[in-house]
């Protein structure tokens, strides 16, 4: 079929190695909390993975052929599916979950969705819960970036893989020293992780809780180790800290890099950032008003709850402090709208991405103008930069694909016997890597209501969303396998 088998296998080998190594970390947690019976769940995963990985790395001869686009797509897709499978094994071994459940939970973990099939989270052992949230953190950065940081010889190859992996439209400035870029991202990620953990600890959480929720925030994932999510803590401080970090994690990481040189100006000049902030602030105010008006909360609390939930949904994290499914329809509708936007490009957030939403809006505006003035030449601009026709087409096609995917997936889920709201919001919540939706998949519900095949389907949907749809869907098109047409 013309793939660069050697390089692909090499990559998979490296990924196996890393994932295997990662699976051994929870053993430490198990040791701390005295859960010896769970050691085996982890080392039985870690050791075979590591060995197999080493075998592939050593045994597969390095390829002389260049890595090409199709190889890139295949690698990324396979890698994500592979790590999900590997990650499921400890779950499968360590709890009573069937494999579909484990797969779902792990897909949810690595894709930083945060949807869960667990009905009683707190009943699970610490090490398992740690692993569950740790996958968020790992997924957040993308295993592939790690692999690339360890593969210096892939210049052109690195670019190809990045095209497949990096979230966000093509306009992102790519640091010419690609390796350098991934190191910077890693650094920022670490800083966010450490600072939030410390702040949460200061807020009275145990180290474990702090770490778990940091993992969930920084990766915009949403797993908690408590059944009522963040509502468990009943603390305004905690709510605010998490809100802040959710938003920070959903901003374009390259802006942090830029701000190191230019200060706040880096942020303020970015159109996407401005758009994002406007949306967050206005929705927070609107919802707060609505909640207050309808008598749900006092104005102070309404603002707090509103800010948190708006941030949680738009950043696609998915934490909840109260059951927003009970909120007035207006607030819910606004949240629904936010689900469609997602995080900023170049962040761990999911969804269509704010930049695309912005481009679409400007594109529509141009459509209106050109209908009125058919001969006008009107460009779509973001700030000072004008967006080329190719990028617009790409963005528009992506948006169409996104919407179609949600609609069709919702259809498939409804066949499983769930009402319209549940089906469609579940689809949206999975593709957008948000986690909770409304009704049957509301914040106090869970995904155990779905049949096993649907769970697996939703799992793949989550991965597809994380990989910006094309990468995973590509594997199912005949064009991908036939190089000649």
């Amino acid at each position, binding site marked *: 079929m*013309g793939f660069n088998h050697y390089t692909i296998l090499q990559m998979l080998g490296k990924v196996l190695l890393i994932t295997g190594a990662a699976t051994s970390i929870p053993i430490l947690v198990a040791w701390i909390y005295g859960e010896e019976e769970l050691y085996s769940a982890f080392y039985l995963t870690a050791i075979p993975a590591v060995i197999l990985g080493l075998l592939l790395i050593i045994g597969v001869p390095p390829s002389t052929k*260049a890595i*090409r*686009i199709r190889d890139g797509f295949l690698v990324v897709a396979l890698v994500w599916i592979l790590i999900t499978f590997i990650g499921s094994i400890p779950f499968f071994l360590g709890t009573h979950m069937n494999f579909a459940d484990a797969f779902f939970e792990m897909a949810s973990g690595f894709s930083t969705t945060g949807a869960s099939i667990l009905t009683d989270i707190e009943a699970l052992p610490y090490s398992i819960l740690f692993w569950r949230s740790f996958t968020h953190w790992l997924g957040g950065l993308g295993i592939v970036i790690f692999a690339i940081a360890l593969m210096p010889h892939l210049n052109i190859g690195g670019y190809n893989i990045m095209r497949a992996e990096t979230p966000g439209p093509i306009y992102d400035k790519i640091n010419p020293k690609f390796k350098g870029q991934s190191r910077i991202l890693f650094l920022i990620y670490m800083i966010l992780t450490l600072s939030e953990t410390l702040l949460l600890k200061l807020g009275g959480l145990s180290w474990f809780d702090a770490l778990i929720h940091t993992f969930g925030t920084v990766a915009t994932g949403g797993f908690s180790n408590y059944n009522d999510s963040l509502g468990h803590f009943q603390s305004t401080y905690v709510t605010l800290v998490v809100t802040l970090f959710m938003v920070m994690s959903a901003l374009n990481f390259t802006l942090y890099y830029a701000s190191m040189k230019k200060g706040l100006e880096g942020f303020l000049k970015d159109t996407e950032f401005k758009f994002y902030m406007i949306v967050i602030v206005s929705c927070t105010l609107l919802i707060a008003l609505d909640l207050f008006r309808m008598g749900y909360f006092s104005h102070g609390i309404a603002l707090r709850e509103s800010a948190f939930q708006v941030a949680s949904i738009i950043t696609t994290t998915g934490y909840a402090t109260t059951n927003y499914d009970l909120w007035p329809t207006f607030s819910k509708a606004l949240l629904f709208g936010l689900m469609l936007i997602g995080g900023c490009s170049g962040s761990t957030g999911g969804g269509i991405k704010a930049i695309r939403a912005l481009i679409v809006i400007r594109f529509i505006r141009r459509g209106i103008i050109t209908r009125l003035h058919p001969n006008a030449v009107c460009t779509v601009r973001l700030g000072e930069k004008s967006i080329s026709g190719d990028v617009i087409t790409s963005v528009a096609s992506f948006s169409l694909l996104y919407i179609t995917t949600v609609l069709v997936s919702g259809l498939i889920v409804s066949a499983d016997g769930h009402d319209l709201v549940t089906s469609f919001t579940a689809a949206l919540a999975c593709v957008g890597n948000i986690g909770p939706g409304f009704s049957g998949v509301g914040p106090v519900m869970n995904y155990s209501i779905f049949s096993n095949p649907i769970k697996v389907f939703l799992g793949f949907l989550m991965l597809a969303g994380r990989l910006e749809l094309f990468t995973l869907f590509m594997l199912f098109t005949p064009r991908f396998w*036939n*190089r*000649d*047409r």
Partner: protein
Amino acid sequence: MKIAIAGAGKLGMKVAEALLGGDHSVTVIDKDEEILAKLSSQMDIMTVNANAKQKSVLEDIKISSYDYLLATTDKDEKNIIIASIAKKMGCPMVIARVRGPEHMNQFDFIKDSFNIDSIVNPDLAISLEIYKYLVEKYTLSNGIFTSGKIAIIEMAAYKMPSLIGVQMVNMNRHLKNMLVIGISRNGKVIIPHGDAVIQEEDFLYVVGEKTPIMELDSKVHLKGKYTDLQRVMIIGGGKTGLYLAQKLSEFGIAVKIVEVSKERCHYLATHLDDVMVLHGDGTDMGLLESENLDEMDAFVTTTGYDEENLLLALMAKQRGIEDVIAKISRESYSGLIEKMGVDMVLNPLNITASNILRFVQGSKRILSSQLIQGQAEIMEIIAGHHMAILDTPLKELNLPDGTIIAAIHRGTNIIIPNGETKIIEGDRVLIMCLLSELSTLEKLMRSTTHLGIFG
């Protein structure tokens, strides 16, 4: 014969050259004074510096006294008009060159409505040749000539190992009553003479009486007349590329065509079904590689630049692609190319010129003809009286190198000629001739009476 050519372009000049060899008188009409001046100093032609579209011009040269008019200006529509007007003014036969793909499906309609006798499309002609080469691997699908008594087949030398290493003069021992009239070696067609030796990779064109040929055929028949060609890459999305891509894709082959002009790409994408159009430069190795260059079964270069076509073809050959074909319009390169191992070099002008010439010869003399690999032509002619080739033993005829008398059909007999054979009036003679030597052939076929006092 008197022939007028409107438009002093490459094609026009090629035809003029060939016609001059046949001792016809040629008049060239063109707007460009300089070109005409250069031409008249090189060739024995009459030149008229005028716009052939104008009736007055045609009147002035007394077009009705001409036998043929060939319109080969730069624009199709001009050609059609010029030809049509000439016809109306009394020129017996008119030929127009029409290149545009829009007209491809309506040649007959144009001929009817405008009263044009023949339309030639060089790009289509060459695409057809390339197509035939690639797909049908040039096995003669109909190797039987008019009378039905003479047949020609193409066979691979390795199918009859006893032939390998044999000299032509000794051929008779192995192939009784048959003659090897052509060898296809490395994509080049050679007319073999006495000392030529058969090599292993050669393909032989063998002529003979029908029955023995058929017997031979059943022994050496190449199974699978059609190749298992699956993927073709074409560089250059001009008319030739377009026609070729279309024909190949109709046949079910996966075609990728690379074109440097984005606008042209859009045109191609709109007009071609099931062909992948790639916007890029043919010299961009990265692009070609990422589009699976190494797994291509055939590689065809049809850009507008001979140099580029040549270099790309060579590059492709180096990478080990089985069939590499280049379109070269300039004669001067063809000698160079064969040394470098490109499988096939086609010159659109040669092909078209031969088409035109064939038409001009008229049905009086040529009974039928066929192109071999776009490089040589087999034609059956009737030996008219006063032809220079009459009544002379073949070995004394001084036939040019690129020509060979394949067979003679006399009355009800078939004669496979040897050095002693003579052609007499009324014979139907089968001749194989390289396209590049057509003009020389013309000389042979002309009436001796034309020479008249010059003997």
